[in-house]
């Protein structure tokens, strides 16, 4: 019976990774260099990314009475509260723009960011049934949940157009320049989301941390107030928060208020790049343990 164990090697060993012979060759091994991010895998799995976004969008407002109206109600109601509290009661200055418009323009990227951050932080744990049973680059999951927020964003953008018409504010010539800032907001959310989603696998504390994080972060971002209120000497430090740059950028592009200096914007961009690269590396390093730990 032992002879069964000693089957001689009768087939040839695929020599190296690469397009040798039939199809592609996958190498499975214990450790990989930390810098191997395998971002090309993401491209291979782009259809899955698309399907996951589609699933979340489609399911998002299922079995709600108001449906997609929620996408509009959320920023509108927040705007209403802020206008009453900070605009009417506290009388915060709003850079010569009607306060509701001023705050709504900031809420657009902010709500996208807050949503994307929350969803991506919980995304891996929320999709654990997939992670345990199927292989795909795990990066697909947090990226998909960040992208889902864009649908709500597009809807609330339409409301902004309506509001601008109501207040008689002509769109600035720079309108389309909000797009790079949108990208910056998405990348910030993804960078932080990567860290938090990977941490969440091991430390479920993250779930409780995220609501506080977004709340504090909002106060550190000029959503309800104007960044001109921040004293000059704190500006540099303040710019470390990329979302401050994003919100100012949105107001600059859409409402034509005074922008911020290029220097401060570059600080924001560098901060985002660092967070994102750090997040990617950490995520990749933890990725192989996800299925065992989740």
């Amino acid at each position, binding site marked *: *019976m032992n*002879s*069964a*164990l000693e*089957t001689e*090697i*009768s*087939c*040839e*060993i*695929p020599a190296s990774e690469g397009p040798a*012979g*039939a*199809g*592609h*060759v*996958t*190498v*499975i*091994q*214990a450790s990989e260099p930390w810098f191997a991010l395998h971002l090309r895998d993401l491209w291979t799995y782009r*259809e*899955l990314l698309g*399907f996951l976004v*589609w*699933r979340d969008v*489609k*399911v998002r407002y*299922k*079995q709600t009475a108001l449906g997609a109206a929620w996408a509009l109600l959320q920023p509108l109601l927040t705007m209403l509260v802020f206008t009453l509290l900070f605009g009417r009661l506290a009388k915060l200055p709003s850079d010569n723009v009607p306060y509701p418009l001023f705050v709504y323009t900031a809420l657009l990227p902010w709500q996208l960011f807050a949503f994307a951050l929350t969803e991506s932080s919980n995304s891996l744990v929320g999709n654990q*049934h*997939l*992670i*345990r*049973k*199927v*292989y*795909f680059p795990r990066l697909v999951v947090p990226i998909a949940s960040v992208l889902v927020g864009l649908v709500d964003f597009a809807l609330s953008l339409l409301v902004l157009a309506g509001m601008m018409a109501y207040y008689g504010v002509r769109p600035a010539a720079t309108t389309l320049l909000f797009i790079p800032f949108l990208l910056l907001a998405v990348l910030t959310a993804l960078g932080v989301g990567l860290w938090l989603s990977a941490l969440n*696998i*091991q*430390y*479920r*504390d993250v779930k409780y941390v995220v609501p506080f994080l977004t709340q504090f972060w909002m106060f550190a971002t000029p959503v309800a107030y104007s960044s001109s209120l921040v004293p000059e000497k704190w500006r540099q430090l303040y710019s470390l928060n990329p979302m401050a740059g994003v919100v100012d950028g949105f107001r600059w592009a859409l409402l034509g208020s005074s922008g911020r200096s290029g220097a401060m914007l570059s600080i924001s961009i560098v901060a985002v790049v660092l967070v994102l690269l750090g997040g990617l590396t950490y995520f990749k390093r933890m990725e*192989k*343990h996800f*299925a*065992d*730990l989740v």
Partner: protein
Amino acid sequence: MSSCAILAENISKRYQIGENAGYETLRESITRAFTRPVRWMKGERERSKTRAFWALRNVSLEVKQGDVVGILGRNGAGKSTLLKVFSRITTPTSGRAVLRGRMGSLLEVGTGFHPELSGRDNIYLNGSILGMSKAEIRKHFDEIVAFSEIEDFLDTPVKNYSSGMYMRLAFAVAAHLDPEILVVDEVLAVGDARFQKKCLKKMDSVAKQGRTVLFVSHNIAAISSLCTTGVLLQKGEVIASGPIQSVIQKYSSSAGISSSTHWTGDAGDNNARLKETWIRSLSPEGSFDTTADLEVGVRLQILKPIEGLILGIRLLSQYEYELAYMLQDDAESSVPPVVPPGELVRRFIIPGNTLAAGTYRITLDIGIHFVTLIIGQSDEGSLLFELENLYGVGRRFPVPMMRGYTSLFRPAWPVL
């Protein structure tokens, strides 16, 4: 030399088990980090509450292109871990494997089904999760629908499906996955008997298309008919590999089976719990003799009213061939009544003068028709017994001593 589809060298996988294995809270990690210098100064060694468990140990194997490999082993032998390593869900602790060709894995049917989405949407979603491209899904869409037999409910959310429909749809999508290497774990246990047969047939045709298949199942009959070669795992190590029949033989004679004629425990799900099984001889002496009538008893605790309870036993030979299958209500022609909660005891009788002397196993098949399998995949409640030929037929030429004798029946049928 033909080319390898899979070549694995010394794959090992370690898990930490014990309290808190896996995840700890942030507080614990932080306290541990801060108290480490203190503990170090006090001379305390880092004491771990967890211990290492090797799910796989130095597993090396090679699979040729087109091989259909059955992976056998008792529960906890490392079969599923091995499949998880090959499907890249988990990384090995050490070792290396090379796969050539597109890999698809089915460790579960219906992975990623979303209850709120319609059957149609779920075909696309699930197909994509399993690794099919949109074009492939579109190409197979009609076949999938036809195979699953849910045409009329294609646009109904799957949360409104019956369990049977859900499983059929899930399997149908999975069955149309066509990678070069396919890894399948125990997914054939879906649906009713007719659908299972259909699934097996589908698997068989997949296997015959020259695809490389790794197949884990407790269903020895399925393995022996589908697979050409086998690998036997025990406690994470490969203890045999080669032609499927020899591996099956080794599997059934491997340690782990000991004669057990009585089982008590608690297994099952929230529909019913299996409490006790036994086999006893009804002969006056109570000996396990070929002439004695044998009684196989099953005691269940029914927790919810069950419509369509399936309660049956399988009689398996020493080599795990299924010899007989009986259901408690085989004799009835109509649909069985609802079984109320409470205790349910059934005794199956295997008449004397049927089986030859030898070793036999009884396994259970308990489930709800079309809905779920309660017991049947695992060894829970299974019994092992040996029959001796003390007074019975053919006593003058005892069966085990006859060369080449392979019959399992030695009945006292009339000779005229």
